[in-house]
């Protein structure tokens, strides 16, 4: 896969496109593993936590674009909300939390949302393949497939997917979809668009890595030399810059191994072309036959 050249890649993408179109065209869904497209053109966002002022306009814009009762934008000026640490849930797909910085009087403002992993654990884990990684980098959830088992929540290394615990019928899994629909219409993600201080930079993920490295190089005092998300769990579409060690901002310390890596290799090991189960079946059949012959002989 690593040596896949551009032509092969385009072929794959176009064939996936054709299949997708076929699926969309036929009323009955096809049986297939979920998509996990890793396009070179995939989008990303670079979050510069040294720039963010914690105005929470992104929270409002996110709710507004996802029809989630945003309320008045003035309510978002309330700073007392920073007294507690919040997480994205069924009422909001992104939150800003305040963290004490080093010696600076100003707190560090930290936006949390789905990281849109390149090799997402949720996509690998979902029993019905309701999650998929799209060509534009978005990891999205398909309401029509979900059975509400919440295995995605168990799998996610960033503790992002949230569930409607108080809905008896059609409870949803909630998470940031990286504005897949808006991007499709040529618009910026809602949070990026509204950010007044350009703390969020949207673009091609590869370009963003270059940009981030450039910023660190030019301002070595402003940033720690670490782009969170560049390599974590095999890379994420959303990446962060910070003035302090990421562990102090409650970022989980993760290696470059992809989240579903071990699990998938075990899974595919046990089921390699169905050889192990068939071999076990044959072995047991053999034992059964021989032991039956033996006990028949003893009876005679």
């Amino acid at each position: 896969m690593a040596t896949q050249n551009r032509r092969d890649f385009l072929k794959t993408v176009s064939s996936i496109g054709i299949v997708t179109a076929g699926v969309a065209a036929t009323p009955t869904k096809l049986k297939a593993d979920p998509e996990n497209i890793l396009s070179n053109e995939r989008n990303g966002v670079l979050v510069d936590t040294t720039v963010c002022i914690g105005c929470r306009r992104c929270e409002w814009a996110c709710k507004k674009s996802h029809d989630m009762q945003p309320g008045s934008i003035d309510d978002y000026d309330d700073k007392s909300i920073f007294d507690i640490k919040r997480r994205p849930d069924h009422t909001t797909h992104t939150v800003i939390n305040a963290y004490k910085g080093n010696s600076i009087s100003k707190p560090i403002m930290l936006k949390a949302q789905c990281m849109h992993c390149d090799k997402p654990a949720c996509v690998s884990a979902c029993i019905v393949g309701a999650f998929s990684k799209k060509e534009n980098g978005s990891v999205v959830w398909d309401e029509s497939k979900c059975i509400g088992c919440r295995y995605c929540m168990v799998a996610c290394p960033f503790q992002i997917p949230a569930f409607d615990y108080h809905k008896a019928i059609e409870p949803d899994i909630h998470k940031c979809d990286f504005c897949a629909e808006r991007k499709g219409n040529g618009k910026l993600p809602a949070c990026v668009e509204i950010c007044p201080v350009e703390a969020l930079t949207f673009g091609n993920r590869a370009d963003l890595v270059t940009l981030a490295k450039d910023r660190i190089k030019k301002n070595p005092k402003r940033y720690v030399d670490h782009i969170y998300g560049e390599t974590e769990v095999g890379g994420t579409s959303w990446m962060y810059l910070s003035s302090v060690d990421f562990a102090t901002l409650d970022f989980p310390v993760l290696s470059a191994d992809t989240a579903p890596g071990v699990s998938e290799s075990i899974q595919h090991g046990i089921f390699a072309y169905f050889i192990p189960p068939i071999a076990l079946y044959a072995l047991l059949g053999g034992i059964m036959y021989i032991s039956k012959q033996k006990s028949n002989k003893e009876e005679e």
Partner: protein
Amino acid sequence: MELLHEALPLKKKYFTPGVVVLLILAIVGMAFLLARFVFGLGAITNLDNQHPWGIWIGIDVAAGVALAAGGFTTAALGHIMHRDKYETIIRPALLTAMLGYTFVALSVAVDLGRWYSIWHPLIFWNGNSALFEVGICVMTYVTVLYIEFLPIVTKKFIGNVRLKGFLAKLNKPLDSLLRTLDRGLNKTMFVFIIAGVVLSCLHQSSLGTLMVIAGSKMHPLWQTPVLPLLFLLSAISVGFPMVIMESTLASRSFGLKPETEVLSSLGTIVGPLLGIYLAFKIGDMFIRETFYYLTEVTTASVMFSVEIIFGVVLPLRLFLTKSVLKSPQGLFIASLLVIFGVLLNRINNFLVAYNPPYATSSYFPSVGEIAVTVGFICLEILLYRWFVNYFPIVSVPSKPANNVKYSVTGA
């Protein structure tokens, strides 16, 4: 000799004070369950975004599957290895497995947010998902268990179909249908028996793969790439202790003579099986150097130590002791310890070890969750009691020969 192995319906009195207590607990559980379906999961469970899985998955499903392992282990021993002396324990173990897996499926269904979409995995496939594998395997295995149980049903009704009124016309065709079914099953049963063992090995291990994807969210004492192997080995070693425990309880409850001889020789197999499991568990601990975590007193280290010492090491010692193997009480207690060990292991793996990065609280089951779990277990026992009363499942040892007329025809 043949007669000694004949399983008979017990036909004992169904209602006893104990049964009434079980019935009340079951009804309470079902009442909470009703609330879950009306108001959603959040209304009666302590589940939240930090702890998406609770005891319904950790105990009812994960431990439930492991504790129903008596079905495939006895099938492997009795049918595949053809050890005829274990014939008498196969049917009770099969019944437990059938009921156990039925309740596993039910527990999954009530835990699903969209329970009415439980059939989706049949059409939406994800071969990368360990849960998909578990789901498909369990569905298939439940079917296999029902098929394996069918001969007991046909045996009961062949020559015994007596519908009344206008349905009486159906008696003859039904009877011949049962006979055909019985003959067909007789010839093909080996296919299902082997399939049952293979399917069990697959999903018992995949159940271990489930938590591997949680990665660093799971405490290193339990998080290991050999989890599937550990799950399989522990399931295999808890199979016979479950059979011993149930057989002992059933004989006590129905006032039958305990089958100590069969259970003792079954017990001799448990020791080596537990030994293999312990060897892998300790070996894994040393290879990954996780014993370091045992040097400090935390919930994790205490739970891990209790699981290993009281759930594996102590019963292993007991099962290797001759006097224990010879006494019904000794066997019973040693078996209970193994069951406790595996139950605790599943709880540890799915609940205790799980600690997400942004957790602000730890999970403890709500009254509703406990009530439903207890209710399901009670229902299972009640059904077991009804089945052994009504169907030829339990072999009554040393029945005098003049009782032949009560045996079931059609065998």
